[in-house]
């Protein structure tokens, strides 16, 4: 069942104390490691948008929400218990399997803080960024610069890894500005991403060498030797998560009913990137939801109207309210292309003796390092697989890749998959969706 904010407050009253205290991160026993809190807790600490959203009413999903929103505190606690914090920017998927092969390292994605202004319905991060001369016509991810300045969203990283080469143009500027910041005593390294998938062998070799260099630096920071066995074990753990997510996505997408809402699926998909800074706990949360979905399918229990029209969503919406609006108005998201395809692929460790090669090959499936037509193919594959009737592409206002690729995507999809495509812009943070956009979404769904 999908419930609103207030209903979760009522449901939370029925959860026994022992359950609330059961779930803790980093396998710690202290009270601060708890994370099973309802949306109200995070709303009180400033996440105002939660009041407008709808949530899955299961304990499994409460666990998911609590875990995701607890991440800022979790990172500070990690530092307090002497874990080393590695910020990974712009890479989106290749490095965390290496990081999580070390016992004392925690990897996180500052990039994901682009959601912060939307969840808090606040412009402060944008204002700070504007003062640093970032134009309004650049991706919302520019707010990450402000989070580095503020030092209130994550502790000082022990290492910052940033991508260059075939990386997002806008975010590249953000990373360069961060590099110029005051982070004395914090090592900052650039990782080159190869631009073309056609030059496959060269690209794999370059990536493999880069990953090896990163592993060496990580090893020094962790003061721990990285053996091949440890790396393989780390990759296997990541593969298990990715495999379970693939199963989940297939089950949700192919099911006649909708066993899970799109917002929870979005959070789960992004969990593949960095496991919300605790891979072991994330593994359990994901498995819990996979089992929940299996049970719901078996019992024919859905969270949306059966008649809702199936669609594929491309490019992650900066404002999660759009997903809720879509579902409330007769659509259902069965497939997605959220530009993190590389984090969803199984890393082929069986194929290579050297696991760094496997990591490199897996990374080459990245959504944004090839031609736009290749990304269109990813979307078309989702349409066919889940028999979607239409596609929505949300644009990130000001993001350069949206400006040049969205129209090409639309043409390709309409021509090859023969389904209609709606392009919408997600404006700046607000508690409501503009009426004009609502009308366009409604009309689109009506016509499917």
């Amino acid at each position, binding site marked *: 069942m999908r419930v609103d904010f207030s209903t979760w407050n009522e449901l939370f009253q029925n959860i026994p104390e022992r359950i*609330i205290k059961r779930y803790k991160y980093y396998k710690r026993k202290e009270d601060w490691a708890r994370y099973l809190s309802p949306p109200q*807790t995070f709303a*009180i600490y*400033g996440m105002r948008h939660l009041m407008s959203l709808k949530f899955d009413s299961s304990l499994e999903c409460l666990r998911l929400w609590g875990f995701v929103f607890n991440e800022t*505190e979790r990172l*500070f606690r990690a530092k307090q218990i002497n874990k080393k914090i590695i910020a990974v920017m712009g890479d989106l998927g290749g490095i965390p399997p290496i990081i999580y092969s070390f016992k004392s390292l925690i990897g996180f994605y500052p990039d994901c803080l682009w959601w912060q202004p939307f969840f808090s319905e*606040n412009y402060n991060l944008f204002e700070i960024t504007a003062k640093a001369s970032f134009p309004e016509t650049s991706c919302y991810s520019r707010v990450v610069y402000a989070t580095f300045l503020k030092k209130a969203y994550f*502790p000082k990283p022990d290492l910052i890894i940033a991508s260059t080469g075939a990386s997002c143009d806008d975010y590249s500027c953000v990373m360069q500005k961060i590099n110029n910041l005051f982070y004395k005593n914090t090592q900052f390294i650039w990782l080159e991403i190869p631009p073309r998938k056609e030059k496959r062998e060269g690209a794999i070799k370059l990536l493999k060498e880069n990953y090896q260099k990163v592993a060496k630096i990580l090893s020094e920071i962790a003061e721990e030797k990285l053996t091949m066995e440890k790396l393989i074990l780390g990759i296997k753990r990541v593969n298990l998560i990715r495999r379970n997510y693939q199963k989940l996505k297939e089950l949700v997408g192919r099911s006649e009913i909708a066993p899970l809402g799109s917002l929870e699926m979005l959070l789960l998909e992004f969990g593949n990137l960095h496991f919300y800074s605790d891979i072991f706990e994330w593994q359990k949360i994901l498995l819990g939801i996979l089992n929940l979905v299996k049970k719901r399918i078996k019992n024919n229990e859905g969270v949306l109207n059966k008649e809702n029209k199936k669609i594929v969503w491309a490019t992650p919406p900066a404002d999660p309210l759009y997903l809720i609006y879509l579902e409330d108005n007769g659509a259902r998201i069965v497939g997605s292309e959220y530009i993190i395809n590389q984090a969803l692929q199984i890393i082929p460790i069986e194929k290579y003796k050297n696991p760094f090669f496997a990591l490199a090959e897996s990374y080459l499936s990245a959504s944004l390092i090839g031609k736009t037509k290749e990304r269109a193919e990813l979307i078309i594959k989702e349409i066919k697989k889940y028999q979607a009737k239409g596609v929505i592409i949300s644009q990130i206002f000001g993001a350069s890749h949206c400006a040049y690729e969205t129209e090409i995507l639309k043409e390709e999809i309409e021509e090859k998959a023969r389904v209609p495509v709606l392009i919408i812009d997600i404006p700046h943070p607000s508690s409501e969706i503009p009426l004009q956009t609502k009308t366009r979404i409604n009309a689109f769904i009506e016509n499917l």
Partner: protein
Amino acid sequence: MEILTSRERFNLLVFDEVPDRILVFPLITNHSAYISNYSIKDYYTKGEILAQAQINAYEVYQTDFLSVFSEVGIIAEALGSYFEYPEEDLPKLKKPLFSNLKDYCERKLDWEYNEGKGRFYLYFDAIKILYKTLGDILPILAYVPAPFTTLALLFEQTEILKEVSFPNREKRKILKELLSLITNFTIQFIKSIINYGALPIIVDPLASGSVISPKTYKNFAFPYEEKLINYLHRYDLDVILHICGNTQIYLKELNESTADLLSLDKINLISAKRFLGDKFRLIGNFDTTEILLLSPEEIRKKVRNLVLKMKDNKKGYILATGCEVPFSTPKENLFAFIEEGKRWGKYKF
């Protein structure tokens, strides 16, 4: 412009991190009506006026919290005690619900909670407006009287204070049962506050050491404060407990509280730091008479002294007044308090 918003600063504090500076929090309540030229009666009876007055006060003073507070009888009133609201004076308890315990035992009380009771609307209307307007950058604190204080306001005060000070076995049982019922009712109120986006702060002014003994506190106040704290901890919220008046005489009992932040009034805070500072984030405690009467220069000097001695408290420190800022406090005095607090409260960041 400061680099952190008050919310970010408060979050760092409760994560056990050191923010850019201490949070500064003169307890501005009806003083916000004074600077906005609103009548006190409107402030205590209209949520939109309370909210607007708080917004105005924030714009003038740039403090780190917003306060939603009527007087401590809000729950007693919802249960049936009668309060009067003079146009230009603080609300007064005109007729308590019961005259004594015997009277309570002879009558039946409606314990069913709903948001429409008494003046609960005042809180909810105010919180909704404040949350929408400033909730992204400022924590909103909603003051909730603890059960002992509500108990005292359901009765003729001299009568009930006598009863709790020297109860026989039978009366003790009745009092405990009644306090449990008040606690459950208060929890429902807290649940609503949480749903509107404010952080409840538990206040227990009538459990002050100026009013009751440590033994009475331990028997009739502390256990019910703890029940509210436990309820808030279910949500993983950071709990602020504020006790007015003199608490010096039951520091030992206070140290057993499971609250996360202690807001204290008439106490030597610097010496209390040694005893309580490893466990609690301390809030306090500039004298409210002094903030009204001293000159800005004298206030600056005293704030500086307090801040420099308190800012290194192990679990953190928030500069505040010991209790509510008096209604007609000169603005200059508050400017002095806030500026000096921010100036000397900076940390290496």
